[in-house]
């Protein structure tokens, strides 16, 4: 009975989400991309690092859908594998950020005092510092690799979530219904889990989507600068790394356009979905 109500709320949410056509389109594209990078690899003729001696810088053909790169690797395969890496880094690093940020934010908001000062001051420092500089610095220290990049991006993302949940919890804490919960004798634990978190979930979800997009951009920027995912592993960023040559830029667009467009489409889709979520979940910013 109860579940029915919740289900109908969910359906309601879906309906509202579906009103936003861009968000739905973004969602479909994301699902397609995810399926592609998850399912496709075993079926690909070429692996990401396999060299076809006939395909050195070859333009797209029937054997190489998107052509070959300058060592004869299949661009399409690299695009798919690169997508895997990009999505992996985006998701995992965001997960790390959430895992660190949310508890810290809740602690700061709930216990205030010294916890708040330390955690929030720390997050101020992190947030106001250009993260790309910090990430570059850390990655250069710990050596660039998928794991370091993921962990560093993830760890540096915590203040976003800590801040958000801190603000949300503080504003929810001020709500009468929290006082009401205290008045009927709810424990701190159940206040957090029954009253605060369910009401804070919407902004977190929205933030997660946007952060995934940001993390993917960060990873690809790093790889583009040569400090991210290292060859021979593929990532959309390091595929573009090579395009910094005029000849590739002018004569071999198949080597740089696909990863660039893939990146753009993915980020755009995630942002559309995030925006759709915001409209559907947060009635305050909902317009019309």
């Amino acid at each position, binding site marked *: 009975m109860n579940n029915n109500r919740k289900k109908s709320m969910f359906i309601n949410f879906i309906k509202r989400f579906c009103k936003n056509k861009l968000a739905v389109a973004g969602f479909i594209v994301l699902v397609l991309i995810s399926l592609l990078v998850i399912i496709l690899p075993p079926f690909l003729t070429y692996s990401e690092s396999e060299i076809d*001696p006939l395909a050195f*810088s070859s333009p797209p053909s029937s054997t190489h859908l998107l052509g070959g790169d*300058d*060592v004869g690797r299949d661009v399409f395969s690299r695009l798919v594998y690169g997508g895997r890496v990009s999505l992996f880094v985006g998701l995992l690093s965001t997960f790390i950020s959430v895992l660190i940020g949310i508890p810290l934010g809740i602690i700061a908001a709930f216990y205030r005092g010294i916890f708040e000062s330390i955690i929030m001051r720390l997050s101020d420092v992190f947030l106001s510092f250009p993260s790309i500089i910090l990430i570059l610095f850390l990655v250069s220290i710990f050596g660039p690799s998928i794991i370091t990049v993921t962990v560093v991006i993830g760890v540096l993302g915590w203040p976003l979530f800590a801040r958000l949940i801190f603000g949300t919890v503080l504003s929810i804490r001020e709500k009468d219904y929290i006082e009401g919960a205290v008045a009927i004798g709810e424990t701190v634990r159940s206040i957090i889990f029954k009253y605060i978190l369910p009401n804070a979930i919407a902004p977190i979800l929205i933030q997660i989507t946007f952060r995934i997009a940001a993390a993917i951009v960060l990873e690809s920027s790093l790889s583009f600068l040569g400090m991210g995912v290292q060859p*021979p592993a593929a990532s959309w960023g390091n595929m573009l790394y090579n395009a910094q040559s*005029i*000849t590739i830029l002018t004569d071999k667009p198949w080597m740089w356009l696909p990863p660039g467009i893939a990146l753009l489409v993915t980020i755009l889709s995630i942002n559309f979905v995030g925006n759709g979520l915001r409209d559907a979940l947060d009635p305050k910013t909902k317009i019309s």
Partner: protein
Amino acid sequence: MNKKVKVFFLVLLIAVFSLAGCSSNQEVKQEPTKNQGAHGKKDGVVTMAIISTWDTLNIYNTSGNYGNAVADQLFERLVYRDHDGKILPRLAQNWEMAADHKSMTFNLANNVLWHDGEKLTAEDIVFTSQAMTSPKVDNYYRSAFNVLAGTNGDGVAQDPKSVGAEAVDNDTVRFTFKEPKDPDTILNAFLSFLFVLPKHILDTGDYASINKSDFWKAPIGAGPFKYVKDTAGESLELEAFTDYYQGSPDFKTLVVRVVPAANLTAGLMNGDIDLVAMGSIPLSDWKTVKNADGIEAVSVEDYSYQYMTFNLSKENDSFQDVKVRTAFDKAINKKLLVDKLMLGEGSVAVGPMPTYHPYYNDKLKANKYNPKEAKKLLEEAGFDFNKEYLMIVPKGNQVREQSALLIQQDLAAIGVKTKIETYDFATLLSMLKDGKFDLGLLGGGSNIDPGESSVILKPGDSRNYSLLTDSKWYDLAAKGASLTNLDDRKKAYDEYQQALVEDQPYIWLYHQNSLWAHSKRLSNVPMNDFVWFNFASWKWKVSK
């Protein structure tokens, strides 16, 4: 209070903009005149591109080759060298090796002036030798001085008076050596890096002041060009030294500019760059450059070499068997590397010396590419095919990074599994030192001395990347260096090369050509000689 705040911000704003303005320079000297388009040129300006900064104008403290490109414009050397290794006179008009091979005398051109108008004399050369061997002075290239009498193995002389350099007269300088030396060694290894410094400015009586001197911010040399100004790490403006003793350069201003490799082609094509001096044009752009109108593109045979290192430390027994190493050498299709990755602009390496090296042993019996034999050799040696071998590659050289992939493929063809990891050079070095690798790709070669490559074969040296414990190969090279008779030397180095092929302590992969180009505005540019940082810029001609 509000007013104060506003004033504060106004001041701040002005400060900000003036700061921004500073970086783009304060005064607008002259308006661009006439029909200067987007990439209009001022007459008499030649722009030379290098891909990495010259770091410092202190030639003895520069860490890389790019400093040499600048130094050769500002400072004079006794001799210089053409592409094939032939020594040409510069400051020294002629020279003579003493019969005992323990001293060498150079006669200088007598009309040489410093940029400040002082006359350059033999005293300056003596001063330079004494200063650069002094422990109070930083000199990365000091070891080149260790041939001189009075210095220790590192080239340090505790007493400057004891250093084997003396001014016979104003125009004659004599170097004396610890032990008999072959003239080639002196001219190639030692004099390559002896840039003469002005005694009248730097000799304050205390050598320690030399490093700190403001001299290096705007050095005064005796080279074809005078220092005008520079933006650290970005560009350097030089002006023709009209009193240059070999004749004034043909144009007024030489700008040395740091341009990322990726931008070289575009710069050349739109006329921003007249000349690519140091650093190759990216291979991917080579075709474009070669076919471009108005550009003279030269593929110069280079003396550097690329090699693969094995982990031969005691802890790692995978490659101890020479058969394994030979098998690897046979398995790698070096020709393909040259043809595909370098588009043919390079050559297959047999040893550290390319076929055009004066000391190349043309009777070398090299391994031939033969995967089948390679596989058999491995099986004979009982090679562990199940293990995955870590191949580490330093970042930065694209051809090398790509060659790793082809090598991986070649090795896979004979059943050897490898995993490639790319690291920045510093990390890679510490991995090499700690033996945390199985295979590695590196490069070397910086002067024409045939024993140059022995440094990577010397047990205990930090450049001994294969972690060799046997000094056999190093000893062979050392023997060559000690001989003064040309034929004996040649024989010794033949032996050295043959030993390297037989034992394969490293696999010599390829020699990659330098891809250089200049605008057809310029002529008489000895691009081939640029490999030895010999630019002869006073000879360049600019068409009007």
